[in-house]
């Protein structure tokens, strides 16, 4: 019976997620369109609402092409390996005081550990395509994800020091009892988290692994049809998951004035975090590879370490 409930929960999350990804893609195009004084998609359905559905339908109906020289089993497995960890991190997110997945006492660690596997999909996809652009894209992608995982993890440690627990529910409850969200006492951590999550997600301005002006399509150049759709789905699922983690850690999760239920506050905050990313995509030019690496290792990691030291000193000082 327990397992049935778990299964139903997972399927429900999956369904909501598919809808969320569909409209996140539409929202991204609409937001960027508005910033660039265009209309964005507006032909399918009222206000272009069915644009992504039409796109997905097109992708699913396309011919499934596998290059002749590709390493076939790996080529087929890579999109799955990219999507599976991005979806399994959703298992520990808590959406409100009563709705949530596994109440793991190492929730944060689970999220970070499982999300580190997404690199494997990128790497296998780029390597097995037997294409120089794919290979370059995947090498860049993994170098970037390995470098930016460090500041991402380090920026969270300040919160863990303050709360003294790795459980996501405990973290939100601590913010409720403290009366202020962690974005105020951990502002440095929040800035580092937001910047390194952009790099971790391969989003603009750090979208070097899929830089279309130099690498065609990056690590998924050779992919088409539903395998390409799978990579896109993985990317946006991971984006929603990281926005959800940011909401829980820095923005107080489901906390908010009582006139709306907790889960609505949670979703509004996730949408807010994603809007910031779309905004940056439309505003900033792409960084160079060396700038990206220098920024990660010489600026973000020292700032994150400084944040940990300051937090630890204050924690010991205050008792």
């Amino acid at each position, binding site marked *: 019976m327990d*397992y049935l409930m778990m299964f139903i929960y997972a399927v429900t999350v999956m369904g909501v997620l598919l809808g969320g990804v569909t409209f996140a893609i539409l929202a991204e195009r609409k937001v960027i369109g508005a910033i660039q004084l265009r209309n964005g998609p507006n032909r399918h359905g009222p206000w272009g609402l069915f644009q992504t559905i039409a796109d997905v339908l097109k992708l699913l109906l396309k011919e499934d092409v596998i290059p002749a020289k590709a*390493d076939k*089993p*790996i080529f087929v*497995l890579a999109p799955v390996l990219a999507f599976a960890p991005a979806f399994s991190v959703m298992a520990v997110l808590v959406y409100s005081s009563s709705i949530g997945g596994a109440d*793991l*006492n*190492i929730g944060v*660690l*689970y999220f*970070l*550990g*499982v999300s*580190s*596997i997404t*690199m*494997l999909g990128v*790497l*296998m996809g780029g*390597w*097995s395509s037997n294409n120089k652009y794919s*290979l370059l894209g995947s*090498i860049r992608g*993994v170098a970037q994800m*390995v470098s930016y995982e460090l500041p991402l993890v380090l920026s969270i440690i300040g919160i863990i020091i303050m709360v003294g627990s*790795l459980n996501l529910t405990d973290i939100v409850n601590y913010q409720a009892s403290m009366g202020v969200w962690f974005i105020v006492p951990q502002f440095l951590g929040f800035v580092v988290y937001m910047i390194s999550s952009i790099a971790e997600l391969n989003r603009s301005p750090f979208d070097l692994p899929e830089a279309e002006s130099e690498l065609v399509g990056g690590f998924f150049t050779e992919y088409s049809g539903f395998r390409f759709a799978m990579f896109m789905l993985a990317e946006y699922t991971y984006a929603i998951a990281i926005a959800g983690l940011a909401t829980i850690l820095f923005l107080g999760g489901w906390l908010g004035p009582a006139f709306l239920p907790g889960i609505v506050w949670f979703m509004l905050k996730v949408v807010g975090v994603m809007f910031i990313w779309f905004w940056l995509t439309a505003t900033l030019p792409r960084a160079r590879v060396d700038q990206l690496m220098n920024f990660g290792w010489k600026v973000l990691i020292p700032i994150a370490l400084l944040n940990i030291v300051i937090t630890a000193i204050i924690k010991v000082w205050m008792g």
Partner: protein
Amino acid sequence: MTAQMTFFIILALIAIVSSVLVMALRTISHRVVSMAFSFFAIAGLYFLLGAEFIGIIQIMVYVGAITILFVFGMMMTEHRNIGFGPDPRKIQQVVSFLGVATLLGIMLYGIFSMDLPTTPQPYVGSVEAIGLELYGHYFIAFLGSAFLLTSALIGAVVIARKEADE
């Protein structure tokens, strides 16, 4: 059969089959992927035993880091012409079989003669307990390994710099 037993058998089968595939498959990229699956199944076994922290560390270190390292090694080197020569000689086969059989015998002896408590306490390997042990009991060993890793890191940087200067 309880659900725990079912999951144990599934995970153990995945771990064993993918470990055998690491040796049996021909191309090195397939071997790396099956190795990742083997590590992942072992992490699942840790979760099943209630050692969540060790399970996550297994995923982070082995699946997340070591497999990526192998894939990088595979990508940076010429992978098509690497083989282990033709058939190994008879004497090599006999010696390796004897070595592996001895190892298996010793391990089985160790496992069967292990003195396990009959009423197992439901031990939860929480982060707090492990942290207290690590920074309390095993502090010297912890510092020692930290020094070792730092010196390895510095050594790698020195070697890489020397190559870059030339």
